[in-house]
């Protein structure tokens, strides 16, 4: 049995994002595996350690820089990687087309991915892949059991949980609470260099969405300090809450 994990390389969540000419200035910004995808990688490796699957393949689409994300997943314990070379400006549609084409060739039993990317937060790609490949899709899983050609997953559901069963192959996307991703070990880092990574060009697909521009969130406003006798302060504060920020009680 084979598990394939889709990973996206994103900006470090700690990075300070700056815009230049309406675009994100990426020079000097640290890139990491999307933390949600990292959970999926860990999940795939744990399935192999439990001998549920025999092989963990990691797949990414993007520029050559995405190779770093693949190597990190390999250092964590994945067996081999596939880099689909694609323009970094590809939208979710084009990205899903490219990934789905590679997945079809690999024919895995389980396709794992994070349920959302930390950068654009669109939550579209796993669902689109499932749609393109005609596979079932279970989202935001926090547990998985695999047996008899089926996966039984515990998922988040509006504050509670639900348990869903699906016949494999299926696309399964992970919530961060599924597991705690391991750090690459020294040995893993050394082995990662020797593990096979194949590259291929992306299947042709034009974007359906064009991003016109990015904008930073509005700057945080300075707080308001009310200084007076306690009774006057309380009255001013109540007035501010009622008439300025319009908090309804």
């Amino acid at each position, binding site marked *: 049995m084979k598990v394939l994990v889709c990973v996206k390389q994103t900006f470090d969540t*700690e990075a300070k994002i700056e815009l*230049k000419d309406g675009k994100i*200035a990426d*020079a*000097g910004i*640290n890139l990491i595996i999307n933390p949600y995808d990292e959970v999926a990688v860990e999940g795939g490796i744990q399935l192999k350690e439990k001998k549920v699957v025999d092989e963990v393949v990691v797949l990414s689409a993007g520029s050559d820089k995405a190779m*770093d994300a693949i*190597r*990190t997943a390999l*250092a964590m314990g994945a067996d081999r990687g596939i880099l689909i070379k694609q323009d970094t400006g590809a939208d979710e549609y084009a990205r899903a087309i490219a990934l789905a084409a590679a997945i079809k060739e690999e024919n895995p039993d389980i396709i794992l991915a994070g349920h959302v990317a930390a950068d654009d937060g669109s939550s579209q790609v796993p669902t689109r892949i499932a749609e393109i490949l005609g596979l079932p899709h279970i989202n935001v899983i926090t547990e998985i059991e695999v047996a008899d050609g089926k996966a039984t997953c515990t998922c988040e559901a509006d504050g509670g949980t639900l348990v869903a069963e699906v016949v494999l192959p299926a696309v399964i996307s992970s919530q961060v609470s599924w597991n705690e991703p391991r*750090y*690459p*070990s*020294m*040995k893993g*880092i*050394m082995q*990662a*260099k020797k593990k096979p990574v194949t590259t291929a060009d992306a299947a042709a697909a034009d974007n359906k969405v064009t991003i016109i521009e990015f904008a930073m969130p509005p700057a945080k406003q300075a707080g308001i300090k009310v200084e007076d006798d306690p009774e006057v302060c309380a009255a001013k504060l109540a007035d501010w809450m009622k008439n300025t920020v319009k908090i309804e009680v």
Partner: protein
Amino acid sequence: MADKFVSKRNLKFLLYEVFGVDELIEYEYFQDHSRETFDMIIDTAIKIGTDLMYPVFQEMDADPPQYMDGIVKTHPAVRTTMSEFGQGGWINANQSYEYGGQQIPTVIQNVLQFIFCAANYSLNAYPGLTRGAANLIVHFGSQEQKDQYLEKMFSGHWQGTMALTEPDAGSSLADIRTSAEDTGLGYYKIKGTKIFISAGDTDAVDNTIHMMLARIKGAPAGVKGISLFIVPKYRSNKNGESEFNDLTCAGIEHKLGYKGSPICQLAMGENGDCHGYLVGEPNKGLSYMFHMMNEKRVAVGIGAAAKATAAYYAALEYAQQRLQGRKVSEKDPLSAQIPIIEHADVKRMLLFQRAVCEGSLSLAIQAAKYLDLASVGEEAEKYDLMSDLLIPIVKTYPSEMGILSTSSAIQCLGGYGFCRDFPVEQYYRDIRIDTLHEGTTGIQAKDLLGRKVTMKGGKAYQLVIEEISITIGQAEVIPDLKEYAAKLTKALDVFKEVTDCLLELKQQGDLEKFEADAAIYLEMAGVLVVAWQWLMQAITAAKALTSGVSESDTNFYHGKLYTFKYYYKYELPKIEGLAAVLKNSDAITIKMNPELFLD
């Protein structure tokens, strides 16, 4: 807590752009590595530091180890970290494949130390000391000892320590009294007391292995009669079962800083049943220990540079955010206040910290690269000599100047810097240990002037002078750096003149006077070699700026050049004053009799 404690950009600038560390992979021993593996190792270390170590940095200081019922209870993060470091192969990463390591170069190992120490110095002490103790067994232990101890230590299940100091034998190890009596049964009976043993006991691991200096009964007096023993807290009996080895922790010290790691008093053989296992040959313990001392002293310098760096980033972050005061030229009292980083005086303090921190790190990387080249290169003797000469400086400059640097970080925060709400006061306390452990500044000074400068007929000294001269030559052909090359040339000439003056005293047999101001000489050497490091960084930055770099890199290189110029304006001139002190023949510190201190 500040967001940042190390700069990956600066690490990569020093490693690859200044020192070309990736050249090491040309050597067979490092051939399995690549820049890619170095980067991934560094990235993972920063992640471990960020996720696992930095979050408990202040907590471990506020909640230090407790001595209860003969056991030292340490923070839960110690167990987690030892386990993570063990499983991840971080304790033995620089060992050869034979010992399960990954043969990473010393220079990369030291960068990892820098990252982990900046994240949490106390927490890093546990795996760091274990690495050092295990390294002694790797180099000098028998196969049986290697089989018995290394796996458990490298996997983080057992803690390692260096047990040297005794109540009456600190800097003067010749006076240690712990005794070892040969039983003829494959072990010695150890009896005595040790103090100041870092991580000497912890409930975070299953056993503690002390690499202990002791004197075999009948051995010669002084340093020639000291042997090295493995003394575990729990030993294996004939059935392979673990049993108590009559080694107890008698208490822990209450310290100024570095509080997350206990400094223990150990009592061995109170019931006459403490077993010690001789490492190597009798009476060679001190030479074995000193074989490892270079590694430990570089580690202290790295640790000091790391703490000062973390303090610098905390001060920088505060200075960027804190609004206070207005430009001198702004006359409107109702105009908006400006971030304090806009004030020249605050910038001066930040530049001082950056100059010390990045100069120190550069020097440590330089020395570590020499150590690597000494182990694999064709000119092993040359690099061995140069690293040997630099090590007292690598240990001392970051430790002494780091105190001033962290103090300056506090100053940037004003009154808040003095309060526990901000981390800088802790860095100031934590760094104070570094001029003390692994040989005080006084010991380093005697090592440099009394031994290293003259060893092998002054060859090491000459080689380092030549290296500095080569860098000066490279700077002289860059128009913007020419005047700085001249300044370093002048400083180097002054240093050589002072060295000649002092060596003349030695030749005249005036040894008291020769060594009286050795610490001042060491300080002068530190100012000089860090100026050399900054010139190397300036050459790299100046060249990079001519090759069309991104906006962020342009800012980075200009920041480097401003810090370099700061160093040459504010720090390098100290050479003249120090030289004046050293050339002054009025031996005040020798003439001042102890009774004259009485008042």
